[in-house]
């Protein structure tokens, strides 16, 4: 039982009021599990990952509870969180390409970061080198400036740095989206490798690209409009999804590899609701082909309908019942 998230609510403060970007998420990630997180852009998946590690304005912690290794994360407290960041919980950000200070030699930067976390660089150096080899980076990168590295190299460097302290939770946000297909595969493999070598206990991989998740994730969680729609083992999600949204999502995939975010979901008429004041009931109902009265008034809970298979849809509940 490594990561437990209970009814996590994180809103965005805007001038017009709160945008309910993450409106009550409850899920767990088992040790050693790689969980893929998918959904249209703006569905709140980045909000979810960010809120776990760096929750700062305009994000606002509204409620919920997060436990990592049976220890509550004070995610609402920027300062307290610093004791967990990097050491217990870490991230490979979307912008990994520019994540490093352009005017610092990489080695120096790493040592400075470690020092700031009261970690001795010397003692970490051998491990660092080992991991560089692992991601096929020469040790010279430590004497280079970021701009001397290619995009892929930077990405890998960041991966190494982010996981250097063997965090128990690592979030990889769109790590592959900026790369070409071949590098994507390599990076994906490395993530798995990291998990296998237990550099990281468990992984949350966020991606537009279900095909990537398909390759590496054990479970996939689908989000829609700030809510969890479905979570199930990868094969299940791909082959026999239950939530109508997931179905449409998968079916609308022409073939593996196309990033669905780019072509609007033609299969699904309409677009997600404004999260400023979302409608009551199921947030998908307006686009849902099977929506019925109940969806209008009551919000479907996120329930486990089969071992390890959670969904939030009245229709399916009825079927089950």
């Amino acid at each position, binding site marked *: 039982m490594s990561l437990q998230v209970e009814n996590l609510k994180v809103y*965005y*403060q*805007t*001038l*017009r009021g709160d*945008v309910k*970007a993450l409106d009550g998420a409850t899920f767990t990630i088992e040790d050693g599990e790689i969980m893929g997180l998918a959904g249209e852009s*703006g569905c*709140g998946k980045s*909000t979810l990952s960010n809120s776990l590690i760096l929750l700062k*304005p*305009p994000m606002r912690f509204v409620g919920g509870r997060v436990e990592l290794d049976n220890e509550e994360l004070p995610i609402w407290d920027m300062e307290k969180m610093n004791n967990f960041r990097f050491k217990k919980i870490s991230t490979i950000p979307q912008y990994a390409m520019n994540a490093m200070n352009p005017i610092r030699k990489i080695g120096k930067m790493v040592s400075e970061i470690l020092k700031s976390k009261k970690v001795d660089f010397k003692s970490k150096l051998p491990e660092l080198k080992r991991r560089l080899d692992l991601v096929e980076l020469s040790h010279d990168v430590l004497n280079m400036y970021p701009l001397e590295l290619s995009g892929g190299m930077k990405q890998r460097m960041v991966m190494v740095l982010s996981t250097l302290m063997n965090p128990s939770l690592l979030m990889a946000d769109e790590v592959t989206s900026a790369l070409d297909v071949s590098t994507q595969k390599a990076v994906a493999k490395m993530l798995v490798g990291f998990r296998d070598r237990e550099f990281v206990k468990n992984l949350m991989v966020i991606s537009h690209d279900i095909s990537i998740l398909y390759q590496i994730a054990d479970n996939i969680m689908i989000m829609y409009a700030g809510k969890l729609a479905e979570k199930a083992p990868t094969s299940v999600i791909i082959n026999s999804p239950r939530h109508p949204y997931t179905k449409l999502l998968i079916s609308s995939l022409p073939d593996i590899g196309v990033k669905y975010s780019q072509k609007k979901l033609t299969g699904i008429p309409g677009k*997600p609701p*404004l*999260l*400023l004041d979302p409608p009551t009931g199921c947030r998908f109902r307006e686009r849902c082909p099977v929506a019925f009265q109940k969806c209008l008034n009551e919000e479907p809970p996120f329930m486990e309908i089969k071992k390890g298979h959670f969904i939030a849809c009245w229709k399916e509940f009825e079927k089950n019942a």
Partner: protein
Amino acid sequence: MPQPKKKNEMLYFMLRNAKLRIGVAVLLIFVVLALVGPLLTKYQPRDYVSPGVEPPSSEFWFGTTSFGEDVFTQFVYGLRATFIVGLIGGGLGTLIGILIGFIAGYRGGIVDEILNMFTNIVLVIPSLVVLLIIAAYLEVRGFLFESIFIGFFAWPWAARAIRAQTFSLRSREFVDLARLSGMKPLKIIIKEIAPNMMSYLLLVYILQFGGAILTAATLDFIGLGPTNSVSLGLMMNNAVIYGALILGMWWWFIPPGLAITAIVGALYVTNVGLDEVFNPKLREM
């Protein structure tokens, strides 16, 4: 997260941005003063309306010079001049900057190399000194003239900035698209690139405006301003030459400098305000 409508959002931020509000307010005050001021006074700036050296009074709101000119009259006419210089000088500077910046940024390659080199050259030469030299040899100097010259030497940094912006825009999809659809470069610049830089160009113009005002004031102060009219810089020049400090005639040299400071300061603040409005990154929640 879905964005609220762009347009009115912009307006909303504008109205809400304190810097912007202050800046614009101050500017408005002076613009109005420059427009209606001359109507409030019955004198001409160079008229001799009193024995001289009179402190501010109900008769002469800002007092009189040691020659008995009405300082208020000179002040309001000077304001006009100041704004004119800003408009024309700043305008010209921006225009040239835009022209060179766009061409260099869009065309790139050798054209860019040359233009950029040229820009840097003009950039290094201290423009005011050149203006000094030129002005020093002119027997009769006018406002238009001064403004134009200032404009001619003010453009480089604008060109530089705009060039950089154009570069970044040039490689955007919608520009590529336009190019693929066989649009003429000029058309692309006008139709595709310029609109996306409007906010930026506005900022550049504001800064040019302020710059022109300061340059003009400096020239005038050195005594190389327009030979046949008043300006705030000229007022300060006269005040210093004719012993306003020693004679304690603060009303002669305080208003013009204060006005310039206020106007230029307001311009800068407005600029930052707009910047915050245009770049959400800088907005404080």
